């Protein structure tokens, strides 16, 4: 769309704006700071061993090198108020990018000189000779300073150039970078899959012996993904979303059904080709989908910010453990979690009842609170539950800090669903997640779902419409609790032993982040959020695809959350309603343009 607008305004008539030096200065210094920060927290050092393109580019350096490119791009971007013509692109963008990069590089060189002169290792473990050696490439400080300054100057220039080149070129270039990084980072998965498909030679060709792509395969992959990027239709994700919103409901429904069928088929057949490691990852993702869907009802639909959600997860896990572990004093030897026997279903029923009771017990006192107050009180309840399980007082029942060990595996008739056999586990979790998706989907469009939405939109008015807000809120709470307890049950069986510390506040927060990043109130959003955060980065205790980043997981979570709130507050795959909510202005503008907006007399809208 921007392209057409640019073409519409005759470019030769206008001269480019001067470079905004204050902006360049700001982003240059910020760039230097960011690079220094990344180096200081030890990302560069610890990720240096991980090669992207063998032998000359390591992941450690990638974490630095993106900075001048990105900031150069930002510094070259001009903010144009609505209604003004798009800025003329040209040399000014290149200059802005270049200077931003140079500034960043200069700042970063200064940082290297400082850590070379003073050894900070007593205070900051990473700021020592090892980092200096790495950043100076084993040469003298002077050479390194020049290299870094010029190098990031060039990268800044690239950033500025990205602004100038046509959209198609930009798409191709970004696709090439994403392709190389992606294939290199997903080495384990790709190897895993090629083994499953018995085409190991592909992986052998792509990857060098000591990890990372070879120069040749790197170039090929960059080329291929570049072509794909060039040929892809150039719409951004949000444009596509907007388009989807305006689709006819019937067409939308049909598209959704097709997508659902493809997903179901993938869920059935993928685990068979994937290796153990990938299945393990997917099982973790599924677990968080299950919990995320529950929290999505509470937070996304009903608008009750529950920060103690992990409590229900713990209740599910502990109920299962207490009933089935031989080490628990209340072990019932007859009860095994066999889904083909009535005993197994009895356990499920008991877990559900306990979760519902927990939901009511926690929910009833806090339900009258609103907003921030509710968040704080639920946070407290979450901790209370964990500390109760940890306490000496309840230790005879729940094992205190030792937790409950030896939780037997689940079974489907004669087939054992062990925690170690990740494939079976994945199927079990998929079935549960599937049920959860169905339940969440049915409720969304029902009388109950409408009441939840009304509650979220305006509680007082909802009450005036005859909705018993207390009852409706409690239903949401209990539904959430039930989903979480199911996840807890699977978790207990999967890991085989549970401890109070498996149920920290962090778990609640991460589930909330999954829901927020995915898109509040949106079922596909929860799935996307889980895949992106849990699958790729890893959960609170579970390793993700990018295991290398494990140490910095929470930092990246935070960065993603901040970036999302700034750029895409509605989440990666928002519900229509939420998208509307956050883009009211754009949409009413669009509607006005399409002349479907209010045509009321006097134009008094």
């Amino acid at each position, binding site marked *: 769309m921007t392209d057409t607008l640019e073409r519409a305004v005759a470019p030769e008539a206008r001269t480019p704006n001067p470079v905004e030096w204050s902006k360049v200065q700001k982003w240059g210094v910020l760039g230097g700071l960011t690079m220094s920060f990344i180096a200081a927290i030890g990302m560069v050092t610890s990720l240096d061993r991980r090669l992207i393109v063998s032998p000359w580019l390591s992941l450690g350096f990638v974490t630095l090198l993106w900075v001048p490119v990105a900031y150069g791009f930002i510094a070259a971007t001009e903010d144009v108020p609505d209604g003004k013509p798009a800025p003329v692109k040209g040399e000014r963008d290149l200059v802005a990018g270049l200077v931003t990069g140079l500034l960043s590089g200069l700042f970063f060189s200064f940082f290297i000189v400082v850590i070379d002169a003073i050894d900070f290792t007593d205070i900051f473990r990473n700021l020592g000779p090892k980092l200096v050696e790495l950043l100076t490439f084993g040469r003298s400080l002077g050479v390194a300073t020049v290299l870094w300054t010029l190098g990031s100057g060039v990268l800044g220039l690239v950033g500025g150039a990205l602004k100038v080149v046509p959209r198609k070129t930009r798409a191709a270039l970004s696709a090439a970078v994403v392709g190389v990084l992606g294939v290199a980072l997903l080495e384990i998965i790709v190897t895993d899959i090629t083994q499953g498909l018995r085409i190991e030679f592909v992986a052998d060709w792509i990857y060098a012996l000591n990890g990372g792509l070879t120069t040749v395969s790197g170039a090929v992959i960059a080329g291929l993904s570049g072509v794909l990027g060039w040929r892809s239709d150039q719409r951004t994700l949000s444009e596509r979303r907007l388009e989807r919103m305006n689709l006819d409901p019937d067409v939308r429904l049909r598209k959704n059904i097709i997508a659902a069928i493809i997903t179901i088929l993938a869920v059935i057949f993928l685990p068979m080709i994937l290796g153990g490691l990938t299945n393990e990852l997917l099982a973790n993702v599924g677990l968080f989908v299950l919990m995320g869907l529950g929290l999505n009802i509470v937070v996304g639909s009903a608008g009750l910010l529950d920060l103690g959600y992990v409590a229900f997860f713990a209740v599910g896990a502990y109920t299962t453990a207490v009933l089935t572990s031989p080490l628990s004093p209340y072990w019932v030897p007859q009860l095994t979690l066999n889904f083909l026997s009535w005993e197994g279903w009895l356990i499920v029923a008991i877990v559900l009842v306990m979760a519902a009771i927990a939901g009511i017990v926690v929910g009833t006192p806090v339900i009258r609170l609103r907003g921030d107050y509710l968040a704080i009180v639920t946070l407290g309840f979450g901790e209370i539950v964990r500390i109760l399980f940890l306490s000496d007082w309840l230790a005879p029942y729940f094992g205190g800090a030792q937790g409950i060990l030896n939780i037997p595996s689940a079974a489907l008739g004669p087939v054992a669903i062990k925690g170690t056999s990740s494939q079976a586990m994945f199927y079990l979790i998929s079935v549960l997640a599937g049920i959860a998706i169905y339940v969440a989907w049915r409720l969304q469009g029902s009388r*109950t779902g409408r009441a939840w939405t009304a509650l979220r*939109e305006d509680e007082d008015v909802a*009450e005036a*419409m005859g909705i018993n807000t207390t009852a409706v809120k409690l239903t949401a709470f209990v539904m959430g609790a039930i989903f979480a307890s199911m996840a807890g049950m699977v978790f207990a069986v999967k890991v085989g032993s549970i401890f109070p510390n498996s149920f920290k506040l962090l778990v609640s927060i991460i589930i909330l982040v999954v829901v927020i990043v995915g898109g509040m109130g949106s079922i596909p959003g929860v799935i996307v959020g889980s895949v992106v955060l849990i699958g790729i980065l890893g959960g609170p205790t579970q390793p993700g695809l990018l295991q290398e980043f494990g140490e910095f997981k929470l930092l990246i979570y935070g960065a993603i959350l901040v970036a999302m709130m700034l750029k895409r507050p509605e989440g990666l795959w928002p519900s229509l309603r*939420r998208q509307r909510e956050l883009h009211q202005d754009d949409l*009413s503008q669009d509607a006005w343009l399409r002349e*479907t907006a209010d045509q009321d007399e006097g134009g008094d*809208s």
Partner: protein
Amino acid sequence: MPILEITDLRKGFGGVQALDGVDFHIDKGEIVSVIGPNGAGKTSFFNIITGYFSPDQGEILFNGINIADHQPHEITELGIARTFQNVRLFPNMTVLENVMVAQHCRTKTGMIGTLLNTPSFRREEREIEEFAKEVLSFFGQRLKGYRWDQPAYVLSYANRRRLEIARAMATMPELILLDEPTAGMNPRETAELTDLIKQLRQDKGYTVVVIEHEMRVVRDVSDRVVVLDHGVKIAEGDYGTISQDPDVIEAYLGRPAEAKNG
């Protein structure tokens, strides 16, 4: 026989006596306007009837039941619906959904029915939707067709007011309380709404209480006017009587003698 009968209603907020012994009654099928200067206690009066505040003292009999201590949703269920002074729709729900959600207390399908997609659930959903469309058709072409699926926030101010009335109607009430329904409307829309209020009684048989500042509307719709000032009922009667009442004129304009001397 009065449908709503209020005796000696009192409510104070700290030092302010919002309502100070108000008696009020409305018969079935009547349209009564409540007027008074700003801060006279009109909206507090509505808020107490609909259960948002409980009165310090006094009795509110609705069809013979004392509703003074009922919850707002119970009162809606008994048959009193209201609109709000500063339009309060569910802005991100569609027009149709806004009206559908208002039938919550008249429908009953629970979770199990929803999850199993039982025939009774499907029938009820269909009925809810049909009734919502029927209610919206009361406003002619204004809230019809493509409007059904538009989120409420894209509506014009006048349409928002109409939707709010539709939503109140969808709770299937006997008594509707309208809080300044014409505020912010232009003269033509105001005239249209005046007719609409009359239709609410003629076509639908509702009993209506209106808070209104626009005197032309008050004159055209009301059978009886109640004037509040500082939480006290200072006058009651038909529009002609009220408009001549010295107390009412004083409440609105101040005492003439004082104005001259001061």
